[in-house]
Structure formats: C-alpha cells, structure tokens
C-alpha cells in the first residue's frame, strides 16, 4: 500500500474514531465528560498526596507529590491507548460488524488500527493538559502546597520527542493488542486493562523502581513506559537521569515493538483466516 493511501486511510479512520467517541452525546455533555474524566483521576492523585504526606521530610514529600502528579497525568496515554485498542476489535467485529469489511479493503486493518489509536492519543493529550493545569491550580494555587511543578519551565525539547516516541511505542503496543484480540476468545475484556495495570505497577508511575522488589526491577527496567515517564519527569526537572540513554532506549524499543507488533499481527491474521475469525460473533 502506498504511503499516501496509508496516510489517507489512517486519517479517515481517525476521523471516524473521533466521531464515534465524541458524537455519542451533545457537545456540552461531551466537553464536561472530557473535563471530569481527568479530574476524577486527579482525585486519586489527591489521595495519594495525602498518603505521600506521611513521608519523612517536607522536601521529599513535595518532590514525591510532583512525581506522582506528572507520572499519573502522562500515564493516561498508556491507559487510553492500551484499553481502547485492546477493545476495538470486539466492538467492530461483534457490534458494528464492519471488521471483515475493513479487512478486505486494500489497506486491511493496519491504517485503521493506527487511526483509531490516534484518537486515544488526542483524548489522552486533552486529559494530560487538563490534569496538569488543575493540579497546579489546586495544589499550588488553592492549597498553596508549593509542589515543585512549573509548567512554563518544562523542557519542551525533551518533552515533545519523548512524548512522540512514547506514544508511537504505545500505539505499537495497542496494535499488538488489537491483533491478539482478533484471535482471542473473551480475552478482549481484560487485555488492554491488564497490560495497562502491569505498566502502572512496573512503570514507575507511583513507586520509584528502586522501591520495587529486586526480582521485579529487571522487568521494570525493560519496559519502555518506564523510560517514557522518566524522560517526561526529567523535562519537568523532577529527576535527573541520563536523557540520551533514556531517549535512545525509547527509540529502539519503539522500533522493536513495531516490528514485534507486525509479526504478531501476521500470526494473528493467519490464524484468523485459518479459523474464520474475522466475522466471528460473540455469543455472550
């Protein structure tokens, strides 16, 4: 498939995905939902902040609070992309019954998966911005906790490439999950959320990797999400890691995930064609 055709199919898949995810209600209710969703996540952070308040030393407390606010805000990319893309095949195959029709179109499912993944990226970006703005407004403004987050001084030269690489890797993970759900039986219900859960626990969102059991630490160190969040925190001046190493790891792991994702898709496609799964209806 030519690059221009791929880009066009991806764009149209994105637009369809956006309409599906945004047109389910009237614009006011949708906008409210888009605001409430990250604010609900902020509430969770607030509870963690209260727990974090029990840590010794006021400086450590504030640094920890800043860490979990930023990590939690950017983890939305992981949660949205993996959950939505893990669930995508189920709805398109069983509910809308269009999966087979998309599959037999010239571009098959590749641009479609990518386009739908990009919808999650846009939704997550809105959530990230809202969460960060409200966090600063509530914790530093209203509560005057003086948490060391300065949004204006974020290192964009670090933040933007890290986010782009992180998102690309996550779409590749989502692509892989979508491929797996073509051939899985009922796994789609837990696939995306399970992966997001593992990334949440091991990706250094709440706990620093050093706080994890020693046998878990190598797994944590292998996850691209760990490096993505590391660099994001670095860009806000919240930690000092080796940027170059983190970015290189992120770039290489993204390429590796894309390659593995394509291989997984091919295996899943072959199995689905052997068993006739592209139009399988869930009977539950």
């Amino acid at each position, binding site marked *: 498939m030519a690059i221009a055709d791929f880009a066009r199919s991806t764009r149209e898949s994105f637009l*369809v995905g956006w309409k599906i995810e945004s047109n389910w209600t009237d614009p006011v209710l949708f906008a409210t939902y888009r605001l409430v969703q990250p604010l609900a996540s902020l509430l969770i952070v607030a509870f963690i902040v209260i727990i974090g308040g029990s840590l010794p030393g006021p400086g450590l407390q504030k640094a920890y609070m800043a860490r979990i606010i930023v990590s939690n805000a950017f983890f939305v990319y992981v949660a949205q992309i993996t959950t939505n893309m893990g669930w995508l095949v189920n709805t398109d195959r069983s509910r809308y019954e269009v999966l087979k029709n998309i599959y037999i179109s010239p571009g098959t499912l590749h641009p479609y998966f990518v386009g739908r993944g990009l919808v999650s990226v846009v939704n997550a970006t809105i959530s990230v911005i809202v969460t960060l703005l409200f966090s600063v407004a509530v914790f530093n403004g209203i509560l005057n906790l003086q948490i060391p987050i300065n949004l204006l001084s974020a290192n964009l030269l670090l933040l933007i490439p890290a986010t782009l690489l992180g998102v690309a890797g996550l779409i590749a993970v989502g692509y892989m999950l979508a491929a797996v759900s073509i051939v899985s039986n009922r796994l789609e219900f837990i696939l995306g959320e399970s992966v997001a859960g593992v990334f949440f626990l091991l990706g250094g969102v709440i706990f620093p990797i050093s706080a994890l059991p020693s046998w878990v630490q190598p797994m944590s160190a292998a996850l691209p999400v760990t490096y993505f969040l590391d660099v994001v925190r670095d860009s806000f001046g919240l930690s000092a890691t080796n940027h170059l190493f983190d970015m290189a790891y992120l770039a290489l792991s993204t390429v590796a995930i894309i390659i593995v994702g394509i291989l997984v898709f091919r295996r899943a496609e072959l199995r689905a064609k052997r068993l006739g799964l592209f139009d399988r209806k869930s009977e539950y």
Partner: protein
Amino acid sequence: MKRDLSIETRSLRRLFKGVPGAGDVVALDSVDLSVEEGEIFGLLGPNGAGKTTLIKILATLLLPTSGEAYVKGLEVVKNAPKIRRLINLVSGGETPGYGILSVKENLWFFSQLYGLSRDGARDRIKQLTDQLGLDTYVDSRMSKLSTGYKQRLNLARGFINNPAVLFLDEPTLGLDVLSAKQLRTFIRSWMADGTKTVLLTTHYMAEADEMCNRVGIIDRGKVLACDTPQRLKMKLASRPSWKIEITPNIQDLDSVRTIQGIVGLSETSNIETGASTLKLVLEDESVMSSLLSKISQNGSKVLAMSKSEPTLEDVYISLVGRGLQ
C-alpha cells in the same frame, strides 16, 4: 485459467473442526466452479451447505484447507492484497456500519479506504444513494434507519469501489418486495457494460431464476448441479412436478419421502388454516397412487392438487431432496 474467467475454483475443500469426538465438518468438498466475466452466478443451497464458506474464501477472509481458488486470475491465498482492490462483499442481515455515523459518513469512510478521490467519492455516494433510494436519508444516523434501509446502505457500501467482482451473500434478506426488485434492477444496470461479475447466494428461488445467468446448487459442501436456470429446468422436464394442498398437515413427513419414486419433497405450512402445501418431484406419474394412499393413511385430506411446469425450486428439491423452508 481461462482468460475470461472472473472466478474459478479447483477441487476446493474446506474443513472446520467439529465438536470433540465428532470429527471435522466438511464445509466444501472438492468444489470445481467457473464464473465468467459479466455473469451473475447464483449459489443455491440450504443453511450450512457451504455457500458463505465459498464466498469467504474468495473474499480472502478464510483459507481453504486444500485446492485452489482464483479471482480474476489471482490465486486467493498468495494474492490477497491484489484481489482486495478488485472485490467487495455484502452480507445480508448484517449491520452495515457505525450506528452513530450518518449514511454519508459511513459511505465516505469506506470510499476512502478504497482510495477514491474526494470528488470521485462525493459523486459515487450521490449516485448510489440516489439509485438505492437512500437520498432522503444521507444525513440520518445509520442507527435510525429501518432494517430495509440499513440493508440498502450495506449494498451501497458494497458498490462503493465499483468492484470488478462482487460477492452478494443473501443481499435481499430483510428487504421488502419492492426494495428487492429495485436492487435487482440496480444490479442489472450496474452490470450492463459486461465487465462486472456477481456471485450471489440466495434463498429466493424466483430471485435466482430472474437474475442469474447460471446457477449452482450446493448441498453439504458439494456442487450438485451447475447450469443456466432454463437448462436445469429442462433437465427436469421428464419428471412431473406436483403441488398438493392437504389438511391437516402430515406430522411424519419422512414416511412420505421414503415412498419409492419420490425424487424430492418440500412442505409449506399455513399456520392459520392448518393446511400445508406439498411440492413434489416424482420419477413418474405412477407414484401418485402410493402417495395419495399415504396421505389418506395419515388422516389428511387432499384439498387441491395441480401439475406444474418445473421451476428452479423443483430442480432444487429434486437435487437436494427437500425444500429450503
């Protein structure tokens, strides 16, 4: 492969895993089929006969277990990406798109997946929605459409890329008589240039008789007959076809089927009157006396009986041994 063949299968076989202990299910059993360019080819068969399996293999959705299948000279396993540019598929009774999107938005999406230019897509959508009677619903959400209009949208989606080969799997399912007629007219006009090919599965014998250049009758994965509807009916001319209306209906229809000389039998019951109509294809007229005495033994009365010219349904009954109902 011949140059003018749009579809060809050679010893095509497809097995599915059955329930544990029951062995494999044979969906297609050494199917040899040739469909020429410009033909509307009908596949007739009961549920589970293998019609949809064949279409799924040709539409690159399913792999054959063995044998070969070609679409426009391209082997379906090795050349799936090339074939996808030439085909489309419409399955009756399925949701045609995203309920939250309008008719136009759904069609636009698929037009872009098939690489239509923006102007070309707009013209094509306008043309299809006009011709299929969807013009007043172009901005309506798909979820708001009636079953019949959803099926029209499904058909419009199938025609969006003006495919060289179109697979229609029960396309008039859920359509009223008028809509089904409109669709048949549309398909004929679409095929007027002689370069398009349609492989159609249907339960409606009259539809197949009216539309198809040739018909294949398939049962339990085997193609039992393949010819023009006219020739198939002519082959049956020596075998009398009878329609007998009886009341009450016969509970044990198999006991009638076992009468020597009955080639095929189908029954249509009228719930309101309690009467039923038997359609029979006989070896010869001598079977009638045994048949009538069997009906009498079952306590049924004959209300009316008539001999008829063989129809495609009679051909089907004689080959499969039973009707579609």
